[in-house]
């Protein structure tokens, strides 16, 4: 390592620097699972996915496999997806309806919708008076806000709404009454925090995504803000530039790269979906790993959850939404187009996958061990959309959890 350089970067206050080891060290990753993922509220799904009694969702918090059900009393319940007999998973699908009970495939033990052992086959061999409740599956906390369901493995953590704090507002504003269109997931070869960074980073879009670059090429000072909330959450907002119907003009720039003749009209009809032009674009980030993308006036509405798989491997689960009262034409349009820019096949996210892959490949460099977070340094929680404001906030929360001094 070139110590001179290290010295010069050290001149920045330490809370604005990241030691790049946090993106690849196995020990840091293991500690994050214990101190962050097992201590915070983790996203599961939307209440509409658990409409009927016996409906369930499964979710993994790293290696802790959980089931969330709609129980007989209509309440949500969560418990380990793990038979108390020999430990087999009870449910293997992401989503389903189990009827009255989960029946383990190994020895047929049955557990009700709250994880209580209710069926013990060939029971007598357990002796007289066996106490079934000894084998109930431990429950875990489950709460919801704006119909978004979260679980928490820590019994001492504050409740969900306290945890969410400032980020409740953008969630409510964008997602109070939605339906689920479907789910899609993808992997990327990199640390989960690279996705959290990216969702708080309004600086990259113009350079990572050539289409966005084309939009802003001649914009000297574009509008938009990044707001940091306590506990590591944030809201990125920016308006739609120009005439939203003028997508044809943009398309000409795109098609320009093909060198082809084209005759797309200068303006296109607005898509037949419910949108809210004034709200522009919103990315609400919930610490540590949830990012609600409400984009293009709400015509793209996707929740992204970055699931940690390993120090250098992450799975992003996406859920696509539509307004609950969207028209049939709107639904058809959204089913066809919502994911167009999302996912590892997406016109936008495809490039983000490349960026995080390139970081993972190169970030071990002995000569460059620190990443600066000093863009838009100033007091307060509100910055210009391209500032590092929310990144600094995220890492402050991260340090709190990990117990390292700021």
């Amino acid at each position, binding site marked *: 390592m070139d110590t001179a350089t290290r010295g010069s970067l050290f001149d920045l206050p330490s809370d604005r620097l990241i030691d790049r080891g946090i993106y690849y060290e196995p020990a840091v990753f293991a500690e994050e699972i214990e101190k962050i993922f097992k201590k915070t509220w983790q996203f599961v799904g939307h209440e509409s996915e658990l409409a009927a009694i016996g409906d369930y969702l499964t979710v993994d918090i790293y290696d802790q496999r959980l089931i969330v059900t709609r129980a007989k009393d209509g309440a949500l319940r969560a418990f380990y997806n793990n038979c108390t007999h020999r430990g087999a998973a009870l449910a293997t699908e992401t989503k389903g309806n189990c009827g009255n009970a989960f029946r383990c495939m190994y020895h047929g033990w049955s557990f009700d919708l709250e994880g209580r052992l209710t069926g013990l086959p060939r029971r007598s061999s357990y002796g007289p008076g066996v106490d079934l409740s000894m084998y109930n599956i431990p429950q875990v906390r489950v709460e919801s806000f704006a119909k978004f369901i979260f679980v928490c493995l820590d019994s001492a953590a504050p409740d969900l709404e306290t945890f969410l704090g400032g980020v409740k507002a953008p969630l409510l504003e964008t997602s109070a009454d939605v339906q689920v269109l479907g789910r899609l997931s993808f992997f990327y070869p990199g640390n989960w925090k690279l996705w959290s960074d990216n969702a708080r980073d309004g600086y990259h879009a113009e350079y990572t995504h050539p289409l966005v670059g084309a939009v802003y090429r001649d914009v000297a000072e574009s509008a938009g803000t990044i707001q940091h909330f306590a506990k590591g959450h944030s809201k990125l907002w920016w308006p739609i530039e120009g005439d939203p119907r003028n997508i044809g003009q943009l398309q000409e720039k*795109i098609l320009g790269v*093909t060198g082809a003749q084209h005759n797309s009209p200068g303006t296109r009809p607005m898509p037949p979906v419910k949108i809210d032009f004034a709200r522009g674009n919103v990315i609400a980030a919930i610490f540590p790993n949830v990012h609600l993308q409400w984009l293009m006036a709400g015509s793209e509405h996707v929740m992204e959850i970055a699931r940690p798989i390993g120090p250098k491997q992450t799975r992003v689960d996406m859920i696509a939404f539509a307004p609950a009262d969207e028209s049939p034409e709107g639904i058809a349009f959204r089913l066809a187009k919502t994911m167009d820019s999302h996912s590892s096949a997406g*016109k936008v996210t495809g490039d983000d996958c490349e960026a995080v892959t390139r970081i993972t490949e190169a970030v071990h460099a002995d000569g460059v061990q620190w990443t600066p977070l000093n863009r838009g340094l100033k007091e307060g929680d509100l910055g210009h959309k391209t500032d590092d404001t929310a990144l600094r906030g995220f890492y402050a929360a991260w340090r709190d959890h990990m117990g390292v001094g700021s």
Partner: protein
Amino acid sequence: MGGEAINRKEEAMAQPVQAQQADLTAIQDLFYRAAEMLEEGRFLEWVDLFAEDGVYTAITAANLKDRGLAIFTDRGRAGLRERAAYWMGMWQVNRGSTSHVIGNVRLVGRDGDQIQVRSKFIMTRMNRDGLVDLHTAGSYQDVLTERGGALLFQHRRVIIDNRTLPSNFTDPL
């Protein structure tokens, strides 16, 4: 759109065997040329294999059985050209050689001048270490149409077996 109308009408295919073979040869030729154009980066030629109002869409097998959330849907030449633009540099992703091996090409129906075809494919991709990986596999469900003596894609639906996509899934399917 035609794509939704793909349903097996095998009984309707009371066509002389020999004509069927000729069709099949022409269909296979279309599919293989399309794959070659994509692998060789001849994207604008590929666009011309579609009807003016042609549709190109991809979806996971799981979502096809659910509400139908697509990975992407490109409608018409303008939409297809936009996709070509992404392949031609609007994405900044790394590229590695891909191969599409297409098999099991089968006529499943005919509806006026539209031919319904199903086929299977396996797609490989060179990874960042230089080795060849299995990238994805699945089915094509096609509606073809004849225009001016040539077969064109009216509706090409790519159904992939994945429920989770690999990273960098921007390569032409």
